[in-house]
């Protein structure tokens, strides 16, 4: 067996394969289909201080090799998450990364603080890139000053490994990665969804009640890969790559482009076994090529 261990800040993962926030619920939904113990980490659905209803339906539309969503960060809130969801998740042999979100810098800091005080949270992923909420989310991720503020505020109150999740809806992703690194983020996650639109030509209405939504899935993979490659050259902290990963080959592309770990997102919906297939697949690839340690592959693209 090849050595698949990677480090995200001080956090050691037994393998670099995670599941992305919002695409794996709180883990339990997928437990009938995949053994949660095999995963490098589970990144949970974005959590805010208080419960959020989310956006009105329709919230989903399929596009060519992709999907638009406008869930709007519906979640049970920090309290219920800790009580009900986290206690379930803790029973598995995997790391728990909690994706958090607020409408103000203060709220971000509060929920981070709260989770830092909680047993069983292994790292925090800071979602400053959700395009589906009016306040907060992406607003923080497409303005350098806000990015700086929120990362810095959370860093101050939270001793856990801190991952900043960036928005791809920007001209220069490296600018934001550098800021996050500068403010003390231990890692960078990218990419979140791209802002998109679809129209029903029969009703003349947008396909989503919120008009626009976030585009994810294989369609965005080339954009995600490009951004990972750019960011890998710009920062020293590890990158968690995501955006359309469906197969071992996809995962390896991300790692070769510079990702230390990867997360399976939309693919969970149509193939709950994706992460498991990828873990096996990376192992076979490495065995076949005689590569002993996954670190030899990270950023290993010849360019």
């Amino acid at each position, binding site marked *: 067996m090849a050595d698949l261990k990677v480090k995200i800040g001080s956090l050691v993962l037994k393998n670099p394969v995670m599941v992305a926030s*919002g*695409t*794996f*619920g709180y883990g339990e*939904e*997928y*437990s*009938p*289909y995949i053994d949660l113990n095999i995963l490098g980490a589970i990144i949970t*659905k974005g959590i805010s201080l*208080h*419960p*959020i*209803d*989310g*956006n*009105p*339906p*329709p*919230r*989903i*539309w*399929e596009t*060519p*090799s*992709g*999907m638009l*969503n406008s*869930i709007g960060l*519906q979640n*049970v*809130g920090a309290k*219920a998450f800790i009580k*009900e969801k986290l206690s379930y998740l803790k029973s598995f042999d995997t790391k728990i990364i909690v994706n958090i979100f607020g409408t103000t810098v203060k709220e971000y800091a509060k929920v981070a603080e709260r989770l830092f005080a909680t047993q069983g949270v292994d790292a925090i992923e800071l979602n400053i890139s959700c395009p589906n909420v009016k306040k907060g989310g992406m607003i923080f991720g497409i303005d350098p000053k806000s990015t700086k503020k929120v990362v810095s505020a959370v860093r101050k109150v939270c001793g856990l490994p801190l991952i900043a999740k960036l928005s791809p809806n920007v001209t220069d992703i490296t600018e934001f990665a550098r800021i996050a690194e500068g403010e003390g983020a231990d890692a960078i996650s990218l990419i979140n969804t791209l802002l998109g639109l679809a129209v029903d030509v029969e009703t003349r209405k947008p396909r989503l009640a919120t008009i626009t939504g976030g585009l994810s*899935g*294989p369609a965005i993979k080339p954009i995600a890969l490009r951004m990972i490659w750019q960011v890998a050259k710009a920062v020293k902290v590890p990158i968690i790559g995501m955006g359309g990963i*469906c197969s071992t080959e996809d995962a390896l592309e991300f790692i070769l482009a510079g990702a230390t770990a990867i997360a399976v997102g*939309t693919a*969970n*919906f*149509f*193939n*709950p*076994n994706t992460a498991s297939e990828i873990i096996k697949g990376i192992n076979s690839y490495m065995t076949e090529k005689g590569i002993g340690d996954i670190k030899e592959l990270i950023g290993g693209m010849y360019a």
Partner: protein
Amino acid sequence: MDSKQFISTIKTHTEVSPDYFLLSMELPSEVKRPKPGQFFMIKVGRNNDPLLRRPLSIHRLISADTVQILYRVRGKGTRVLSKRVLGERLDILGPLGKGFEIPSQINEAILVAGGVGIAPLFPLAEELKRAGKSIKLFIGGKNREDILCEDDFRSLGLEIYISTEDGSYGKGGLVTDILEDYIQTPDSRLQTQMYACGPKLMLKVVSEIARFYSLPCYVSLEERMACGIGACLGCAVKTRVQSSELRVKGKNSRLRTPDSRLYRLVCKDGPVFNAEEIDWDG
């Protein structure tokens, strides 16, 4: 959760009416026998386009190891499915969702179907029959070709009322009209449970009728789905009861308890809901 991901081989696949297909497939023994109203998430193609699985109801369990799906070609996904042939293998998740319940106290069931909404009502009728309930079925469609499975239901021996919008078969007009005509006859109202499946607009009117005549009514809803298992939160439907409760409690919806949810999930909390729960304008 008793749902599984499994591979099923197509046994028969025929176009039973223009654009309506009946597909029989293997139900492996390790898969739980589905209940009426439950559904499968089916990967219709082999590649990334279409990307997501499509939700399709269980139509008939024709033997211990064979299950049928009845579907209408609506867009890309169902079109791709309609091209899959005998012997091909489908990747499926299921059975999923909460099915129809049969309250023990009822002695009459009124089933209302719009178009392909007939699909999940057949196994329900079978179960109602087994439970010894009297069953009335109302089927509506645009035209004659939308009226499906009539013979199958007849062989169960239930009363059938049919309407088509163009009058080409049964009574001319909407299914909700013939339904209301029937319900107005006084003695039919006792110990009755209504069940409806079809287009949202039809379900809304059926719900209003049920409410007006104080009949309990289950509706099977549709919403766009990505995961089918409660993980993506994509298939939200607005609930009425919750939402009014909340408004009383306080305007700041963000201070509510997790239980008082404004939205429910069609895939997990449904697809069958009590009609009263639904905010039909939401």
